């Protein structure tokens, strides 16, 4: 496992920077929560420096022009946005292309499978189950639809560790702030 503390350190730094750049005050709790979560996600993703697919996908999806968070993201990313943004554009384009190809192939595969009929063999049933779960996992992980299976599992690994770091830091911050306000 990666050294946890260094990752936490980076994440926290980025997050605080992003939070400080966020335009306060948001009126509603939900907006605030969104801003917090967004900054945390982006901090987490940028901590990877574009080495992992999910981080790029996360940033690119957050920075999509049509999204609501766009301004927030731009603020958070700030001057650093140039580099990750450039990286994100390419994957975004590739992502859309891959998506189309994937959809096409899925359609074809579905057609083929229907011709075969119901699969009675346990192995095929197991494969079907596994495939279903893989689909779910793909939907969970940002940018997961564009990865092959090997990459998917690697990205999952990375994503899980980052999520853990995120949760730990946020939790400690929350407890500290709660205790601070008491």
């Amino acid at each position: 496992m990666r050294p946890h503390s260094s990752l936490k350190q980076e994440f926290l730094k980025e997050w605080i920077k992003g939070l400080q750049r966020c335009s306060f005050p948001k009126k509603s709790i939900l907006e605030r929560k969104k801003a917090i979560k967004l900054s945390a996600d982006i901090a987490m993703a940028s901590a990877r420096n574009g080495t992992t697919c999910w981080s790029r996908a996360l940033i690119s999806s957050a920075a999509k022009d049509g999204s609501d968070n766009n301004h927030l993201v731009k603020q958070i990313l700030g001057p650093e946005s140039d580099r990750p943004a450039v990286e994100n554009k390419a994957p975004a384009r590739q992502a859309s292309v891959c998506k189309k190809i994937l959809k096409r192939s899925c359609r074809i595969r579905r057609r083929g499978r229907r011709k075969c009929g119901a699969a009675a063999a346990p192995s095929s049933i197991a494969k079907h189950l596994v495939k279903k779960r893989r689909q779910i996992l793909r939907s969970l992980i940002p940018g997961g639809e564009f990865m092959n299976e090997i990459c998917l599992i690697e990205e999952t690994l990375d994503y899980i560790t980052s999520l853990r770091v995120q949760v730990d830091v946020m939790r400690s911050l929350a407890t500290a702030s709660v205790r601070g306000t008491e």
Partner: protein
Amino acid sequence: MDKGEKDKYELENRNENSINYQAPVMSSDWQFGGANLTSAGMSLVPSGNPLALGSSCASASVADSFGSNLWEHPSNSQNLGFCGINVQNGASSSNAMGIGKSTLTSLRSGVDRPFDMGWNAASSMLKGGFFLPNTTGILPQSLSQFPADSSFIERAARFSSFNGGNFGDMVSPFGMPESMGLYTGGMGLMRGPEDMFAANGMKSVSGVESQKSKLNVTEATRDACLQVENRAKKSPGNDRRSGSLFRANEEAKQGAGGSGNESDEAEFSGHDGGQDEPPSLDGAGGEPSAKGLSSKKRKRSLQDAEIDQAKGGQPPTEAAKDGAENQHKGEQKQTTSVNKTTGKQVSPASHPPKEEYIHVRARRGQATNSHSLAERVRREKISERMKFLQDIVPGCSKVTGKAVMLDEIINYVQSLQRQVEFLSMKLATVNPRLDFNIEGLLAKDIIQSRAGPSSTLGFSPDLSVGYPALHPSQPGLFQAALPVTGSNTDVIRRSLSSQFTSMTGGLKESNQLSNPWEDELHNVVQMNYGTSAPSDDLNVNGPQPSGNT
């Protein structure tokens, strides 16, 4: 292994010193006249195959004695009877395993000396257990007792795979006709138990047999249970490292040093003979060649019950040949690989799968060889990475099978994401201004717990001073959580210090901080500890401020 080592191990065995915990278990068992060792035997196996080889040396004496018994009583019944009796006595499991392992090592040393040593050393110990049942008619029933313990069978298969690899080593470098003759004789003898094991559903045996036709000699000679153990161990990992068996075998064939072989085989890593690949298990080059080799061997093993000794010298050439013929053997590989992957969760006691892939092979008629090869490689990679995931995701270690593991992973990711959402919401409610004045927070904490200085920055180097003092004070329970929380706060402080100028009085601050650190860490640790459990249960962590102060 050197002779000196063997002697040392024997002595340790006798003295019940535990070189590794396998040895003492076995020796103690024998001394106690065969206490029920099923569990002990099982415990032996989990020692880990990496230890198997080491322990095999320790148990070399036992194995040798057993082997000597085998050879001394060439009658099938007697051999099997020993096998069965061991089961009945409860010492068989350990004996079998020990024998398998010890024979492996002894064979690997490739000299008759270990056998002599073993016989002399352990004969006295073993006589009670082995010679008791000179009955001949017990074989089938006694052997049938083996499958009763599926986990034992698993381990037996594991060890048998070890056996296979070692035998390969033994066979090729040492073309000793005598030993070969012995082994062939043993093979004939052990054919019966092997078949019985297969009949009992010990897929591992057959799997081993099929996979390593070249090692049939060794397989047959050694205990079927040993092979079963080996196979069993392999079967769970089959989907991941089906080629590892061959790697081990080929390494053995390479005639590497005994210890080197042991370590390699034990770890099932390394490279195929002449087919170098990255040390990781998913070496594409090695695996296909190994697969081809296995497929080839499988055929032969299925066809020939007995294998002539010449095969022993051929495996290296065969390996090279197979590497070249890989493309043409794709079908076989496919079937075997497919069989293995479908048998991901197959227990070693699954005899039908062993026979299945014969049919599967005929049925499948899959795509081109290169595709199947690539498929195989891809599957190996995936399974290896799933292993990493198993380590990370809590509660996944006991789970086998892709679907269930994927389920766990999905649940874990979902729970983590939900936690992030919840925590962000909590932070939003707690801090309406989103300013998150970290400095202020920490300062407040410190002020709360202790009337200390308001300067909370610039003591990161001193924190490390404080931590060692803290650790002994913390209960052991929180040790695990401590580094996390400690690093959290440390991280926070470090980041703050990086952004703000450091303050004065490092030492003074550290001293003053140590107590507040203790309190804060206590609380945070309790909180984390309390919340980490629910998170493991895949529940969204409810706020547990009660865990604080």
